[in-house]
């Protein structure tokens, strides 16, 4: 079966989505499926070679980041392009999705998950499941040791896709947790905020770029006096 890994991140080569697809493929390899080729949507998602690679594959794992609690515009442009293809090239295509986000709670990716399930119905795809994973924005910057645990979870999901023909429902469910934080989790976040730890990374980067003093800038605001 012809398989394809599709990276829908606007960051292209330097993307968390790409990293996650590599981890999934490692799990697929463990289950006896060779590492599928990977294609980036960026910078132009409607390139004929990208659309053709998708149409030509029997099974596609499509990963992308959450943008404004939805899909990136780049991904939407790609979906609009493939929807124009002859229905016979879409019908029965086996498609799995991965939505990854910086926000830790699953509630942020829920509506998009519903959209993707409905998209499969609309275009005649066989939906192999959607992994929704929060709190992974930093994986592209962290050393291998720090991401080993999360790498193993994605590899396990990849193995389940290769051996069972779909993502394990148990893994799908667990990855999307927590939907929202309970009282304990919210208290921890409140404390992290109170002591400035939650925004430590942002402050570090603002300082690194000499922009910390301008962090609250409002460059486009027009005051009532027109200034």
């Amino acid at each position, binding site marked *: 079966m012809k398989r394809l890994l599709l990276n829908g991140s606007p960051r292209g080569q330097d993307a968390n989505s790409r990293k996650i697809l590599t981890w999934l493929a490692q799990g697929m390899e463990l289950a006896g499926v060779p590492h599928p080729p990977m294609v980036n949507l960026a910078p132009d998602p409607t390139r004929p070679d990208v659309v053709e690679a998708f149409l030509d594959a029997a099974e596609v794992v499509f990963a992308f980041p959450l943008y404004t609690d939805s899909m990136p515009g780049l991904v939407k442009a790609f979906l609009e392009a493939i929807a124009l293809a002859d229905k016979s090239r879409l019908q029965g295509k086996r498609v799995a999705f991965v939505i990854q986000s910086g926000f830790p709670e699953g509630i942020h990716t829920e509506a998009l998950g519903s959209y993707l399930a409905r998209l499969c119905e609309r275009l005649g795809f066989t939906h192999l499941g959607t992994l929704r994973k929060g709190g992974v924005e930093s994986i592209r910057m962290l050393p291998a040791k720090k991401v080993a645990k999360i790498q193993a979870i994605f590899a396990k999901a990849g193995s389940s896709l290769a051996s069972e023909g779909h993502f394990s429902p148990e893994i799908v469910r667990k990855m999307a947790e927590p939907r929202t934080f309970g009282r304990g989790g919210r208290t921890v976040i409140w404390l992290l905020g109170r002591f400035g730890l939650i925004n430590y990374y942002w402050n570090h980067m603002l300082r690194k770029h000499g922009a910390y003093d301008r962090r*609250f800038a409002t460059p486009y605001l027009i005051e009532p006096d027109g200034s």
Partner: protein
Amino acid sequence: MRCLILNGNPKPSGFDDYLGRFTQAIAQQGHAAERIDLRDLNLRYCVGCWACWWKSPGVCALKDDMAALYPKLVNADLVLWASPLIVGSVSALLKKVQDRFIPTIHPYIELVDGECHHRHRYPHNADLGVIVEPTAEDTDADLAITLDLFQRFSRNTRTRFRLFVTTATPVAEVAHEALAA
């Protein structure tokens, strides 16, 4: 009231006429209304570089027609996101502009109603409205999903969600709803 209508229709059609009548109805009631046909602008996709968060706070690094759109977005009282539904959701063109909203929020994270969200950058964010034109293929489920996606956008951008309508609603009714504070 300053009302900004972002028309995400990728090709001219009757949807533009609907928005034209809506814009006129708002203006006739003494409000400032501006419709922008996004297809006429040179707009790039957000590349997730975050320069707007940590290099030039509030200013996008991409040099394109968004530069002229940001002041309008920031200083409007109501922004209407308008689009025909394509493959069950708003156009890629409109989504591209939604993605470029990032410079108008702050990277800092805080808890809002028990959820993690980004902090406001501006003291006032325009209210949000959505006008969509469904196709014959779109069902109530598609409309519900589109509404959900915009409700999430509204929560994220900390804007008040004022209306969600389809073009089946008479223009006068939509204008009335849009102007009801």
